[in-house]
Every structure is written in structure tokens, then in C-alpha cells.
């Protein structure tokens, strides 16, 4: 199972990185989302894998999986949700301001050096 989980993390990372290297904001954001999934699962696995051992008293399970990474992942999920919301909105704003959704600023009408404030 460990190999499957690790390869899934790797897949999501690779796909995320590939999409982040695209030239439009939308795939970049999707890429970031995928990377976030990968990170969350990776963080989760730092408590090692366990089935049927939820970290809850009185479930009658033989033991408890490590609850700490779970709490950390929860925090990470929430934070990345906020971040995703912000970048989605910023990408929309950039699109509305410029009329296109290119990510790179070097190959279009925008002056490289900031220009008009």
C-alpha cells in the first residue's frame, strides 16, 4: 500500500508541477491545487499508514493512528483553501484588468519594469 500512496503523491506532484509550468493562470491554479493535494497526503503519511485505527477514544479499534499529522493536515487544508481562494480571485482580477490570463509578464504588452503606477 505504501508504494501506491507514494506513487499517488508523486503523480499528483508531477501533474501539479507540469500544470504550474503552463502559461495561463487557470492551469497554474489547478496545478497548485494538485500540488496541495500531494502535500496534504504527504504530510498525512508522516504518521504512517493505518487502517481502522481512528484517533478517537472508544471506537473499539486496536490502536490509534497518529493524530498529530491529521491535525496538521487539517490546518494545512484550511490554509491552502484560503490561499486558493485568493489566487483564484487575483487571477480573475488580473484577467479583468488586462484582458487576458497569461501568467508570464515578459511576452505581452505589459512593460517589464512596472511602468505606469
Amino acid at each position, binding site marked *: 500500500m505504501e508504494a501506491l500512496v507514494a506513487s499517488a503523491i508523486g503523480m499528483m506532484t508531477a501533474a501539479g508541477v507540469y500544470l504550474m509550468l503552463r502559461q495561463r493562470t487557470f492551469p497554474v491554479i489547478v496545478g497548485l491545487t494538485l500540488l496541495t493535494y500531494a502535500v496534504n497526503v504527504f504530510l498525512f503519511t508522516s504518521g504512517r499508514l493505518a487502517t481502522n485505527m*481512528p484517533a478517537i477514544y472508544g471506537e*473499539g479499534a486496536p490502536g490509534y493512528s497518529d493524530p498529530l499529522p491529521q491535525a496538521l493536515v487539517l490546518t494545512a487544508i484550511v490554509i491552502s483553501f484560503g490561499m486558493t481562494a485568493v489566487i483564484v480571485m487575483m487571477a480573475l482580477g488580473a484577467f479583468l484588468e488586462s484582458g487576458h490570463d497569461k501568467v508570464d509578464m515578459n511576452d505581452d504588452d505589459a512593460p517589464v519594469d512596472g511602468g505606469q503606477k
Partner: protein
Amino acid sequence: MILNYALDFAFLCFGLGLAMNLYRVFRAPGVTDRILALDTMVINVLTLIVLYGMRTKSGVNFEAALLFAMTGFVSTVAYCKFVLRGDIIE
């Protein structure tokens, strides 16, 4: 114990169902098919969760299953509304 075999059978059925949904997601003439496949997938997955709960004699994931049903519905409607109108909250 026959119940175990039945459970295995159910696992098999819903698992195969999941696989079929997956195939449909990839091979679909249009996005509506994919939305439908995803919707069905959610249902199959939540069933698998419940079956897994039976196998492990634990109900700890049932809220998750309930939430899957809820969110699956909301997201299906959202995708459809997007296809229909573009603006999903207008």
C-alpha cells in the same frame, strides 16, 4: 459466514461500478456524461465507505459518507449550472 461473501460481492459490485464510472469519465462524448459519471462515482464511493464500515464494524466514517452525498449533489448541480448558465450563483 455467508454475510462475508455477500459483503465481498457487494464490494466487488460497487468497486466494478467505480471502475466503470472511471472509464466513462475518460471516454465520454460530452461533459454532461462526465458530470453524470462523477455523480455516480460519488455514490459508489460512499457506498464503499459504508460497506467498509460494516467490514470493520465501525461507523466512524458514516458522517463522511453523508457529507459525500451532500457535496456530491452540490457539486453536480454546480457543474450543470455552469454548463447551463455560466454563472452558477446568479
